[in-house]
């Protein structure tokens, strides 16, 4: 009898990896099986998590798209060269020609100051005021379109500085101020998304906690019985932790699907709008790495949420 008794004890005290993994595998799928018996409740919780998480992840996708849009505007940015008043039309034409041969310049167009004045007189409504001026106050202007490979600010600014060195050029203007402001706004928006993510992350934590709490109450008897026949804390917690995992995992995946579905729905109108602006811009979907991070984030919220509730519940039972 004594030796038989020892045999009973052995599997529990010896760390049996295979049995341990089998238990995990069993719980993993049985927790899924439990959901299949109450699919409506399960999908409701998953949907709430998905919708909650789709808000911050969707905002992040929007910001990323706006950032890439502002990057594209950079590319199309023209540089205006205001020449000195003393420069003659002939010289300005020559300068335009030489700029056109510059390998950094895609196109240089001269705006004749005489033509510009006529145009201004015609459209501005200051016609008579301009007539009283003795001479033409406008300088010749050359408009430069940089080549497409100059697609970042630093390179563009280098070109601007180069042009500033030329003696005939009085002012080089590249209007990027509004881009800076847009980027500033985007930075604020990004910060806002971080805050929303934290808040809604807590919301998901509470959703999972509450769902698991209800599940705990429904299975109170089962927990009591398993405790009485010698179940460890880990054994009792495991199925609930897996429930949390599934809630987080599926909630995260559905959130990503929701966001990409929205991008897909908005992409059509966006493309037709951007063709009106002669741009080939189209919305980008959520990058895969982001999607994976969101799902991992959601899984950890699910696991932490259930862990907190179950360990609290068990601590109350213990003496």
């Amino acid at each position, binding site marked *: *009898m004594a030796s*038989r*008794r020892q045999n*009973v*004890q052995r*599997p*529990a*005290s010896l760390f*049996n990896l*295979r*049995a*341990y993994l*089998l*238990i995990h595998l*069993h719980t993993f799928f049985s927790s899924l099986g439990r959901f299949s018996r109450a699919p409506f409740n399960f999908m409701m919780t998953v949907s709430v998590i998905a919708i909650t998480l789709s808000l911050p992840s969707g905002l992040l996708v929007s910001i990323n798209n706006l950032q890439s849009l502002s990057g594209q505007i950079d590319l199309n940015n023209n540089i205006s060269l205001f020449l000195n008043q003393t420069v003659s039309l002939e010289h300005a034409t020559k300068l335009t020609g030489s700029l056109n041969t510059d390998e950094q310049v895609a196109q240089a167009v001269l705006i004749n100051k005489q033509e510009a004045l006529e145009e201004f007189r015609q459209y501005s409504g200051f016609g008579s005021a301009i007539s009283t001026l003795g001479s033409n106050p406008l300088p010749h202007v050359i408009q430069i379109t940089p080549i497409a490979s100059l697609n970042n600010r630093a390179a563009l600014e280098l070109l601007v500085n180069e042009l500033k060195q030329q003696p005939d050029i009085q002012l080089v203007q590249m209007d990027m101020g509004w881009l800076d402001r847009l980027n500033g706004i985007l930075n604020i928006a990004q910060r806002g998304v971080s805050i929303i993510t934290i808040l809604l992350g807590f919301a998901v934590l509470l959703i999972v906690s509450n769902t698991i709490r209800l599940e705990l109450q429904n299975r109170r*008897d*089962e927990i*009591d*019985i*398993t*405790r*009485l*026949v*010698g*179940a*460890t*804390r880990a*054994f009792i917690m495991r199925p609930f932790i897996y429930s949390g995992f599934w809630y987080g995992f599926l909630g995260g995946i559905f959130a990503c699907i929701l966001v990409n579905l929205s991008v897909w729905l908005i992409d059509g109108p966006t493309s037709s709008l951007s063709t009106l602006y002669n741009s080939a811009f189209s919305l980008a979907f959520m990058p895969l790495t982001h999607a994976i991070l969101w799902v991992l984030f959601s899984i950890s919220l699910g696991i932490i949420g259930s862990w907190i509730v179950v360990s609290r519940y068990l601590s109350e039972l*213990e*003496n």
Partner: protein
Amino acid sequence: MLQFINVSKRYPGGSDALKNVNFELKKGEMAFLTGHSGAGKSTLLKLIAILERSTQGQVMLDNQNIGRISQRNVPYARRKIGMIFQDHRLLHDHTVFDNVALPLIIAGLDRHEVQRRVRAALDKVGLLGKEQRYPITLSGGEQQRIGIARAVVNRPPMILADEPTGNLDPALSEEIMQLFEQFNQVGVTVLIASHDISLIERMGYRTLQLSQGEMVSNHG
């Protein structure tokens, strides 16, 4: 096997559930625990199952002071006791097999061993062939047998039964008691809480009697 040394239990609020209780159950002994309701029977059983801790004194199980073991070790101490309840405490959404297998799955035994032992336990209580039934489809006596099979399936050195025949008619009660005798004959220590005095007297085992928290009689 089981020893109570000057054990007292006072619940918060001031009532003394047990007062200075002393007794010992030797390995392989079988005994009954009696007393009116409120005498302290369930408190005594709860102390053995470590559902409560004593306020004073020592509860020794298998030479271990289970009143003082850490929470982490409680499950392992509980595995030394097979517990049987008046209301069976079965999982009604699980089959008979799953119910009986529970202690083995908790202990992490592999599938073949689980199957072998569950069948052996069910054979002993006469329920072989009903593994795939649900408890609710079986009679009260059969449900109690499932509870007994679950209690003995991992071959604990001690069986603790709380009013195991409370809801059964005399004939069924007799059968259940015979089962306990059989386990006792192979060396298992058995403690049965019951107030079925006639049955206890007929069986003629040692009887521990509690009254108002005190052990008033302790003889065989």
